[in-house]
């Protein structure tokens, strides 16, 4: 093997192996039921988070719940969406813990992480810069362009996150010859 691995990547792989072979990582990976249970939880929480967020995004686009004021939809759904995403992230963190070395070598996982960061930036931008400008009343009035764009970005990014997440087991490692 005369392939030179950049020190940053070598460090990342070493760190991922340490995580995966830690007590918690091996406990999850080796338990017959724990891993499946956490995966099920990840999927169930994702359904709540993504589905309710999709409803909010469609409301921003004027394509759902048209008679309920936007601000009301946001304030009512926000705690459920944030709570469900918290569960998605905790369960996802535990799944990563048990398979860290394989994950850092997986292109679908890397793409998924980048997309999650972008979705997070989009959500923050919406909350900080857009949602405060929305009018509470006048239910049927169209939402501002910025809100509609944030809605489209959210639907697109989260859909791609689900696609890349489901593709993790199907895409080959991008480290030829395995992890150093």
């Amino acid at each position, binding site marked *: 093997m005369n392939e030179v691995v950049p020190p940053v990547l070598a460090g990342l792989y070493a760190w991922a192996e340490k995580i995966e072979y830690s007590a918690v990582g091996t406990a999850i990976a080796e338990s017959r039921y724990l891993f499946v249970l956490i995966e*099920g939880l990840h999927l*169930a929480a994702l359904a709540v988070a993504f*589905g309710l967020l999709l409803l909010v995004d469609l409301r921003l686009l004027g394509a759902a*719940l048209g008679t309920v004021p936007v601000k*009301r939809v946001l304030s009512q759904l926000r705690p459920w969406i944030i709570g469900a995403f918290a569960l998605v992230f905790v369960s996802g963190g535990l799944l990563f813990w048990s398979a860290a070395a394989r994950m850092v070598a997986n292109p679908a996982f890397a793409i998924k992480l980048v997309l999650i960061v972008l979705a997070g930036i989009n959500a923050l931008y919406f909350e900080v810069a857009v949602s405060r400008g929305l009018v509470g009343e006048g239910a049927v009035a169209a939402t501002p362009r910025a809100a509609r764009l944030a809605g489209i970005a959210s639907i697109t990014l989260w859909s791609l996150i*689900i696609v890349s997440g*489901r593709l993790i087991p199907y895409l080959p490692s991008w480290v030829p010859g395995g992890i150093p």
Partner: protein
Amino acid sequence: MRLAAVLDTLQNSAVAHAISKSDHLVGATLQVVHIFGIVLLLSSLVLVSLRLLGWLLPEAPLSVVAREGRRFFRIGVTLAVVSGTLIFIATAKLYGTKWIFGLKMVLFAAAVAIHVLLLSRVLRQEQPSPAAARTAAALSLVLWFGVGFAGRMIGFA
């Protein structure tokens, strides 16, 4: 054994061969469609259940929330059932005899029955009785999420 014969016929059908002989990304695409269907289906039940329990948008008419739930449900169940059927046909002999797959199908049948006989009837009323609303919401959530969990376990059991 008749089940084995049925599973054998399915897995040797033209559809099954078309799926299993194509690129493995065809199978992956079916899995992606399946997960989107499940996500839409489960979220529609969360949405209408929260409204039935009075925890979400209590002032919005039930019919308004139920309409959005119905759209999500119809798209979700269609995607999940079509992709799920194709996945099953291609892998009938591998999955068809697993107890967890049988459990998933039993839960699925029960969930559909509750949906048709109870939940959609409750959602058609503007003021369902609190007892009926709670029962329909709880049964639907338990059964449909049970289908999801059982499905997630098939690859591991």
